[in-house]
């Protein structure tokens, strides 16, 4: 994957965004970064399986993982690892989904502040959940995938329909439509939650997002959606690079901006919806991870996507572990920790960037 010469002054001259005047990441350094990211993720997975109310050593985790795979586990350690399996798997899925969706949304809208929730996905999933809780007797112990997912996807379709004028949708219209629809849905959610104490009791926990109390079945439910979204998303790297030059430039490079945007937005929506359905609306991972990764990789979206898919899960798993450690013997909800961890990192990344927004 040797990047094309986007660094020549013809393609990115005085009129191009400042980010594009930086040289693209070389293949050697990119691979090194990827190796580091994978190492970080591996560490996060082991920690996630080992740490909690009952501590295990890495050796015990490795042994239990083996028995888990061969299906012959019976020791106490095996049970502990098995009980931490769902949250670890879901952490990987949700972390990767949110971070990659964040990269795509920031690339599509050419707006470094775009958050994957910007298309109204989180609000849509939450509104569906609240409707289910209020009128259909849905429990809140699990984020019910078959309720949250349709809600999220339906919302994205509505947002897209609103944003599409006669000449397709512009990034700005998309963002605005998402913001407006989110706000309307949020009003609806609040109105229900505040007039129905029983719904409020469930919703206040679901609304923060957490990896705890999940089952493997939930992971299997969202996995197909996640994988389709991820594969579609990883294929958008070159497109996003071209779009960064502006739509006309992208079209003159032989790209179809409208098609590219629709595919990208749908991939992001699928990813975001599966994450929200699985673990609730965990904030900030999708906004912060692309920024943090970008401060290492520079503007090439191909590396950004791959590395975010690795760093996102690591951040989410570490946040989850931290939540287990700070509030022992109980735990603090993951969504609270991601914000506390991610915000300082985001601000550091911003201070390192020369120009933003």
């Amino acid at each position, binding site marked *: 994957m040797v990047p094309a010469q986007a660094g020549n002054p013809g393609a990115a001259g005085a009129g191009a965004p400042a980010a594009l005047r930086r040289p693209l990441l070389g293949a050697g350094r990119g691979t090194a970064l990827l190796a580091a990211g994978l190492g970080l993720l591996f560490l996060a997975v082991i920690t996630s399986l080992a740490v909690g109310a009952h501590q295990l050593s890495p050796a015990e985790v490795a042994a239990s993982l083996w028995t888990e795979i061969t299906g012959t586990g019976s020791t106490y350690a095996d049970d502990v690892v098995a009980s931490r399996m769902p949250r670890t798997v879901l952490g990987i899925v949700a972390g990767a989904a949110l971070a990659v969706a964040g990269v795509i949304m920031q690339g599509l809208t050419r*707006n*470094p*502040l*775009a958050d994957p929730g*910007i298309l109204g996905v989180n609000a849509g999933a939450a509104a569906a959940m609240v409707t289910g809780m209020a009128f259909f007797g849905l429990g809140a112990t699990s984020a019910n995938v078959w309720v949250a997912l349709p809600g999220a996807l339906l919302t994205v379709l509505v947002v897209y329909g*609103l944003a599409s*004028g006669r000449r397709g949708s*512009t990034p*700005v*219209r998309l*963002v*605005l*439509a998402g*913001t*407006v629809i989110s*706000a*309307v849905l*949020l*009003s*609806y959610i*609040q*109105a229900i*939650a*505040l*007039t129905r*104490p029983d719904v*409020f*009791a469930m919703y*206040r*926990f679901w*609304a*923060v997002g957490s990896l705890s109390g999940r089952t493997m079945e939930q992971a299997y439910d969202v996995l197909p959606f996640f994988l389709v979204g991820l594969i579609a998303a990883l294929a958008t790297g070159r497109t996003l690079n071209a779009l960064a030059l502006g739509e006309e430039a992208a079209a003159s490079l032989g790209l179809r901006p409208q098609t590219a945007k629709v595919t990208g937005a749908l991939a992001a929506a699928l990813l975001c919806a599966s994450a929200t359905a699985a673990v609730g609306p965990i*904030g*900030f991972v999708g*906004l912060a991870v692309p920024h943090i990764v970008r401060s290492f990789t520079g503007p090439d979206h191909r590396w950004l996507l791959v590395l975010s898919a690795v760093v996102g899960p690591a951040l989410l798993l570490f946040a989850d572990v931290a939540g287990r450690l700070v509030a022992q013997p109980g735990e*603090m*909800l993951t*969504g*609270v*920790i*991601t*914000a*506390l961890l*991610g*915000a*300082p990192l*985001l*601000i550091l990344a*911003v*201070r390192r960037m020369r*120009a*933003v*927004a």
Partner: protein
Amino acid sequence: MSGVRTLTGNRTVPGPRTFRLGKRLSFQYRRRSVLICLLLTIALILVGAFTLTAGELGLTWRELFGLAVSPPQGSASFVLERLRGPRFLTAVGAGIAFGVAGSLFQTVTRNPLGSPEVVGLTSGAAAGAAATTLWPGYLPVPVAAILGGAIAVGLVWLSTGRGFARPGKLIVAGIGISAVATALTSLAMTTVGEQQAQTLAFYLNGSLASRSWSHVATIAAALVLVLPAAAALQRQLNLVSLGDDMAEALGVRVVRTRTVAILLAVVLAAAAVSVCGPVAFVALVAPQIALRLLGVSAPGVVAPALVGALVLTLSDFTVQQIDVGAALPVGIFTAALGSLYLGYLLFGEARKGVL
């Protein structure tokens, strides 16, 4: 970037007229602005009258007009002085404060989406209020809210590295600090008991239920302190809206003006939050409505103040009269209303916004 109605070649706007008193005192005004502000004031008075008379508990119109000649009697006095009077006046005051705060923010950041929410003030205030449920007994809720808002704005100011000079960085830092504040609020929401969480959720939406004269006094004091300073800053602010370089060339000390304006806005917004909680969207929408009504490039102080008051009082009148089986906080309604209006506005203009 800001909501400027550029003058196309074939459309001219009548210029300002000058009002003179003797040789020394003079000021400029535009007929349309004066007319619009008069209409807004009349509308506000009408909303006040409807607020006091609507529903089963409302005064009769005869009682309302009787107030001009004699103090109210019996149940009328209870409704006026205890139930709806303070509530309406608090809404007016908080609406003015939100409107002016929003106008100051949008002018200095040259961003139609600039608002107290952006620099973390609202979420900071919410976190402050939430902290009182986690560690009860140290501070009253409004004080904690103001403190939280001030801390958040201070942190944003530190995070941007060079004060509030760079709108882009300001917004990113605001997002980061807001996220931390929101995390603290969520923490409170998920650890306190059911009843407390309900109360907190109500406050966090922004509510004007059961206000008293002390609330009116609080917001009035803040307005008396800050509004003259905001008005005095108008000329520099209008120049800053032309762009930093242009303003510097015309002799405005841009960085200082921006910092002072944001501080004034923070004080106003904090005062408003302390009397009715972080009501959404009023600060964001009021200056934008004012801009369009006046047809000018920078909305100033008076029109956003009146629009803010009108939006908040009208919303509160609506939630008082809507029957959904329980009292809704006014913030839910302003959020719905504001977002719909914003959508209409921004789609109509298809302008570039920074989110």
